[in-house]
C-alpha cells in the first residue's frame, strides 16, 4: 500500500470513546470513498493526525487492519495537539497522513507463542496485535499478555483484559506497583509476572511497548530465561514530524524511528537503547 504521504486527507470522527481520564479513542473514516478504499495498514504502524490551525501528532493505529469501516486511534491528552484532539466529537473532521513505519512481525510469529509485555499507561501499539491474534487464533500458539501499571487506576480497558483472559489458550497477567482494593491481580512490576507466564524460550515471539527502562528490564529478564534476542521486538517513540525519515527528529543513532521503526527487532537497536540522550 502506498502511504498517503504528502498532503493530509480529510477524515471524519465517526465515534469518540472515553477510555479513562485523559485517554480517549477516535474512530475515523476518510470522507472520500476512494481514499478510504485505498487505505490499508498493518498493526504497529501509525498515522499523523492534523487539527486545522493547531498542528499534527503521530498516533498508532489500534484497530484491526481488516476492519474496513473505520480505524481507531487511542490518544492520551498530554501535549498541545493531543489536548486539542481531546475536544473532538463525532462528526468533526481532521486531516490524516499515513500509514507510516514498520509493523509488528505477525507473519513471522505464526505458529509460535505470542507474548505481549507492556508497561506504563495503556498499551495502544499492541492492542492491535492482541485483537489480530484473537481474530486469527488458529494461526498462533499461546497468547500471553503481561501488563504492568504504576497505580491500579492507570489500567485502561480493564474489561478488555478480563475478556481476553477468558479466551482459549490466552493468559492475562497484570501487576500494579501500588495496588489497592478491587485489584484482583498481582502487586509489583511486570517482571514479577514472568514466573507465572511460563514463556517457552524456544517458541515465542515477544512484543513490547512502554517506557524504555521497562522494556530493557524485560529484555534482560527474558534473556536470563533463555530467549534469543531475535525473538524480542519493541515499539519505540521519538519526536516525529514528517513520518518519512526526512525531518531528522526521530533519529536513534542511524535509524529513523518513524521509517525504520517504530517496531524494531531488539538486536537492531540494542547498541543505544537506554543510553541517555539518544
Amino acid at each position, binding site marked *: 500500500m502506498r502511504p498517503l504521504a504528502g498532503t493530509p486527507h480529510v477524515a471524519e470522527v465517526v465515534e469518540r470513546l472515553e477510555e479513562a481520564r485523559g485517554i480517549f479513542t477516535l474512530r475515523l473514516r476518510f470522507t472520500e470513498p476512494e481514499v478510504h478504499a485505498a487505505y490499508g495498514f498493518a498493526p504497529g504502524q501509525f498515522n499523523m493526525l492534523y487539527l*486545522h490551525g493547531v498542528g499534527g501528532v503521530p498516533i498508532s493505529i489500534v484497530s484491526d487492519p481488516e476492519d474496513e469501516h473505520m480505524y481507531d486511534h487511542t490518544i492520551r491528552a498530554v501535549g498541545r495537539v493531543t489536548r486539542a484532539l481531546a475536544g473532538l466529537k463525532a462528526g468533526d*473532521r481532521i*486531516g490524516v497522513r499515513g500509514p507510516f513505519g514498520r509493523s509488528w512481525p505477525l507473519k513471522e510469529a505464526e505458529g509460535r507463542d505470542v507474548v505481549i509485555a507492556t508497561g506504563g499507561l495503556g498499551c495502544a501499539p499492541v492492542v492491535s496485535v492482541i485483537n489480530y491474534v484473537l481474530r486469527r487464533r488458529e494461526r498462533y500458539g499461546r497468547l500471553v499478555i503481561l501488563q504492568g501499571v504504576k497505580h491500579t487506576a492507570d489500567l485502561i480497558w480493564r474489561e478488555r483484559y478480563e475478556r481476553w483472559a477468558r479466551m482459549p489458550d490466552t493468559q492475562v497477567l497484570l501487576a500494579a506497583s501500588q495496588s489497592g482494593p478491587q485489584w484482583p491481580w498481582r502487586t509489583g512490576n511486570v517482571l514479577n509476572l514472568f514466573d507465572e507466564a511460563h514463556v517457552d524460550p524456544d517458541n515465542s515471539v515477544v512484543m513490547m511497548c512502554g517506557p524504555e527502562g521497562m522494556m530493557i528490564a524485560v529484555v534482560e529478564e527474558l534473556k536470563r530465561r533463555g530467549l534469543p534476542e531475535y525473538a524480542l521486538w519493541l515499539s519505540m517513540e521519538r519526536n516525529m*514530524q514528517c513520518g518519512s*525519515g526526512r525531518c*531528522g527528529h526521530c533519529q536513534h543513532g542511524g*535509524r529513523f524511528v518513524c521509517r525504520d521503526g517504530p517496531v524494531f527487532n531488539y538486536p537492531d537497536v540494542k547498541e543505544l537503547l537506554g543510553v541517555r*540522550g*539518544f
Partner: protein
Amino acid sequence: MDEPLFLPAESLQALVDALQGRGFRCVGPRVQDGAVVYGRLDDAGELPHGMRDEQGPGRYRLRHEGDGRRFAWANGPQALKPFLFAPEEPLWRSRTDADGPVFEGLEPDTTGPLAVIGARACDLAALDLQDRHFLGGPGPDPHYQARREGLFLVAVDCSHPAETCFCVSTGDGPQVTAGHDLALHELGHGYVVRSGTERGAEVAAALPVRAARHDEIEQAGREVTRAVRAQHRRLPSRDLRSVLFSQLEHPQWQRVAERCLACGNCTSVCPTCFCHSEHDQAALDGSESLHLRQWDSCFTEGHSYLHGVVIRAETAQRYRQWLTHKLGSWHDQFGRSGCVGCGRCIAWCPVGIDLTEEVAALCHSDEEACE
C-alpha cells in the same frame, strides 16, 4: 571527458550570457555584509574581484588584494543547500469550509531553472549527500526534486583554501571531480574549463574558448597541489563510527558543552545538515493555516521533545548527537561520513569550537583507531 578548454578572463560574461540565454537564472558569489554569499548574477563584473578571506575558529574576514582573480577565496557561510532545501517553505494549506477542514497541497516554490556559478568541490559532495537524503529513501521529496532538476552547476577548483578547510582529509576537495556541469580552474589570465555533462559541454562550446595550453593545464595542477598542501586541519580518514560510539561517556563531551552555546550556527552553515521542523501557522481569524517546514537544529530543546520530556536536555548530549551523527551514524544512513571538510562550522561557531580538535580529543585514548 573532452580536452580542457580555456576561457579568457575578460570573456567570463559570455558564460553568464550563455546560461541566461538557455533560460537559467544565474547566481554567483557576491560580497554582501562582509562575507561572500550567493546572489543574483547578471554581470560578471559583480563577482568578488581581488577579494581574499581570512578564516579561523570563530573568525571570518574579507580583504581586498587588488588582483583580478574572482574566486581566490574559500567558501563563505552559504552552501548550495538553501537553493534546494529551502530554509522555510509551505508544504500544504488547510482552510475551513462548511463541512470542516480542507487540505490543499502546495506546488513547489521554484523560480525556474537555476545556474550556480562558483560552487566548490566540498559543496558538490554535500549536494550529493542532500540528494541521497531528499531524493532517496521513501521516494523523492517533490519540493527538493523540482528545484534540483533545474540546477546547472558551474564549479570552481579551490586554489586558496582557508585555514579552517580540511576537505583533503575527507576526500571531497579541493579539485572539482564530480557532480558538476562545468568545472573552472581560475588562472591569472582566464579559466581552464572542463565539462562534466553533455549539457555542460554544449554550453562550453558556445563560449569564446580555445584549447587549453599544456602550461595552463600544468599550472592548474600545481595550484591544486598547493591548495592540498596548504590544508593543515584534518579528520582521521577512516570511518569514525565505531570510535565515536565507543566514547559516549568520554569527559570531552562535557568539556565541549562548557564552551558550546547550543546556538545552532554550525547546523545552519553545514551543507549536509537536513533536519527540519514542521509547524502550522494559522491566520489570526483561524480560517486558514499554512503547514510549513523550516530548518531545525539538533542543538535546540524542541528537537528531541517527546510528550513532555526533552530527551537531550543537556548541551553535552546535543553536541554528542550532532557529532556522532555527522561522523558516525551517517555511515549507517548514507554509506559515508556526513562531513565534507568545508570548515564552516569552525569559522561560524561564535566561540570557535573546532570539530577536528574535538574528534582528536575524543580519539586521544584510541589513537591507533583514529589514524
